[in-house]
């Protein structure tokens, strides 16, 4: 089903009697999709278009099914952008189709700039959605400071369609930057790289990306630090990072904006894992614990982003990473695995009992008939 209006979508939910599998562009099938055989796919692709854009107020309101590419084009025309640099999952997951802004919001998809500009949920300032009974509801608005009632915007961000079907999302956007440069350090061990990234991020130099590739483009380790802004400022801050970290190893700059952007796209999209055979896990950890955790994983392939706070790891199919790792502060998501593996290993980290009860209670309230992506986040 691809309703053409919010009202039609609400009616589709109201009249549903079997599970609804909510789709934006269908490019991020993350979650337990075991039960997807029964029921109907409900696409938001029919709800498309920019509904309000005020560059002078840094505000964008857009229908949930709008292609992400269209959103980015609209913003670029005014020299603005989505602050959180959303990942494109297609290469990693081998999917095709057109990512939508609603899918980005529903999965709280953020990229390398998360460390400086916040996650997708931090830029979301309002939304409209259809709950499990087919009611159209709204929360937040179009202004960036708003504490009027509970923040359901954050709750719905990342709820992957299990609390409601997003129909419209409002964002705070930011100016695009005039220049960027990537400072690169060669040959660091994972532990030294994490240390270097922590030092860079604890500096006043506004680092907007901090990633480490244990196997860089030429097969040897490469640590990346990005600075963005006005041209002279970028040069200045890159220079200061050289002074700070120069003793660690050979350093060079990627000052060509396109080459720099390509590097960050490869980090953002975890391109190193595209087409590889193993399961891909995404771990959210305390940055200074990243290298030790990675060692315990024994992964075949690794990528660190968010200054170490995000680890991408490839393990042999079916490996229970959580059992191997034991307790740690943070969580692990099984982003890519066969359907069989996703039946046996929870895709999302099991939560402490009180939070589990709260999450179940919220799902029961927002979707009492258990029709919206049932079991997807279980």
């Amino acid at each position: 089903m691809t309703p053409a209006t919010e009202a039609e979508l609400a009616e589709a939910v109201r009249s549903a009697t079997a599970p609804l599998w909510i789709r934006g562009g269908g490019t991020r099938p993350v979650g337990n999709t075991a039960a997807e055989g029964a029921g109907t796919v409900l696409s938001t692709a029919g709800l498309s278009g920019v509904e309000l854009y005020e560059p002078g107020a840094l505000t964008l309101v857009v229908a949930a099914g709008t292609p992400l590419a269209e959103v980015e084009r609209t913003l670029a025309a005014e020299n603005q952008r989505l602050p959180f640099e959303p990942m494109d999952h297609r290469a990693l997951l081998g999917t095709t189709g057109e990512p939508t802004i609603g899918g980005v919001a529903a999965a709280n998809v953020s990229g390398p700039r998360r460390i400086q500009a916040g996650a997708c949920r931090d830029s979301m300032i309002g939304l409209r959605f259809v709950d499990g009974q087919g009611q159209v509801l709204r929360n937040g608005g179009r202004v960036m400071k708003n504490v009027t009632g509970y923040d359901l915007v954050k709750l719905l961000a990342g709820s992957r369609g299990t609390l409601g079907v997003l129909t419209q999302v409002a964002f705070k956007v930011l100016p695009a930057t005039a220049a960027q440069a990537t400072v690169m350090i060669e040959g660091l061990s994972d532990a030294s790289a994490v240390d270097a990234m922590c030092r860079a991020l604890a500096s006043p130099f506004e680092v907007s990306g901090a990633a480490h590739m244990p196997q860089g483009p030429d097969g040897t380790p490469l640590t990346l630090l990005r600075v963005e802004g006005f041209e002279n400022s970028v040069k200045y801050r890159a220079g200061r990072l050289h002074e700070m970290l120069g003793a660690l190893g050979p350093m060079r700059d990627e000052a060509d904006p396109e080459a720099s952007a390509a590097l960050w796209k490869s980090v953002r999209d975890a391109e190193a894992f595209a087409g590889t055979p193993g399961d891909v896990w995404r771990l959210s950890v305390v940055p200074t614990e990243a290298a030790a955790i990675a060692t315990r994983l024994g992964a075949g392939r690794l990528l660190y982003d968010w200054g170490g706070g995000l680890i991408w790891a490839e393990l042999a199919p079916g490996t229970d990473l959580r059992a191997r790792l034991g307790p740690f502060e943070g969580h692990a998501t099984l982003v890519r695995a066969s359907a069989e593996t996703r039946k046996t290993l929870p895709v999302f980290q099991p939560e402490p009992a009180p939070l589990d009860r709260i999450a179940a209670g919220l799902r029961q309230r927002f979707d009492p008939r258990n029709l919206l992506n049932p079991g997807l986040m279980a």
Partner: protein
Amino acid sequence: MEMPSPDPRIIAKKSRLVSLLQGVLPDEAVIHEPHETRAYECDALTAYKCPPLCVVLPGSTEEVAAVMRICHAEGVPVVPRGAGTSLAGGSLPTADSVVLGVSRLTDVLEADYRNRVIRVQTGRTNLSVTGAVEENDFFYAPDPSSQLACAIAGNIGMNSGGAHCLKYGVTTNNLLGVTMVLADGTVTQVGGAYMDAPGLDLLGVICGSEGQLGIVTEATLRILHKPEGARPVLMGFDSDEVAGECVSDIIKAGVLPVAIEFMDRPCIEATEDFAKAGYPMCEALLIVEVEGSPAEIDEQLAVILEIARRHDPVELRESKSPEESAAIWLGRKAAFGAMGQINDYMCLDGTIPVSALPLVLKRINELSRHYGLDVANVFHAGDGNMHPLILFDANKPGDLELCEAFGADILKLCVEVGGCLTGEHGVGIEKRDLMLDQYDPADLEAQMWVKDVFDPNWLLNPAKVFPLRVSAGRREASRAA
């Protein structure tokens, strides 16, 4: 402002409740003598007062949990209180409630510079969080103007903002984890020193829930290294409209100032009389501040000044020294004090789309004439968060009611132009009954679902946020149970 009538059965068992609480807390942490509970009868919305049944000041998460277990078992409402600086009546007690204050929970548990987080108990004041990391040149970004006094617990409850939100965001954007005691006394952790949630983003809905979902006793907050420097520029314009256009043009030019503050003529006049900051007498004044190294500041200010000149400013004052910077900020920082010198005032907090600024200021002036009360506007212009200050005389019969009616009209105007009732102060009791002007009943129902799940008996801060008639069924069901 209507409050629910207290439950006589709870008031009747006060002595039993006090002895139960004394069983789990040190004697001095249970305040129950009427002359002592009066100190907790209101917060910074002083027009409304009601002493609680008693006040508890637990000294640990475990003690908070023990209090919550007792109140849960006894069916007693709990009103959480940070530092009592709420301008919205967020911690106004009811006569049948226990006020749970976090003022003894002030420890820094861990300052972790490498991971750029600090873990604190939530009774700690906002400014003393920065104070704890300042010697290493770090700071905690959200800076509500009450930051000297307000507690992190209240900041989380209200999702507080401040003058620097345009660049650094508000509390929710700087909060990574909490330790929370649920309504039944269960202690749980949500989030931590990592950057996203494993499942539903519960932290996101806890922040800004006005103490209605649980008692947050510890928080993991993001800290940042201080910028190398900051410098403001002051500009005066002869119309609101031009000042508004200037703000919009600065933002469109790709500069992201850390703060853009706006003051209108009545506000400039009042602060000049009081603080003598040497501000130009004009219709609208902007203070724009940028950060970075000296050269980076120059680069950004060059762009900003060029834009300002295009709008024919009546004054353009660039700071060349820390003294000049302080002089530029002097009047703005004295604005609220200046108003207090003139009269009693009510500070509103609606947010509007920046583009609606001229229209909203014009309508506020019309309303001012209609109600016969003066109003001055201070405004975080970059993010649209207005702070109209309505002057009234609390000793003059009927003036408070007139002021409230005027305030309600301004807030409805904010909603009408696409904004909201409150940008950073919270709903509390103050804006509770206006919520249906912003939201449909079903939208509020969805918010109340969240409370139903976290606090099924509706015992936590029950008469706040939602219009009384909207929450009546739930509150009465809880009382009957």
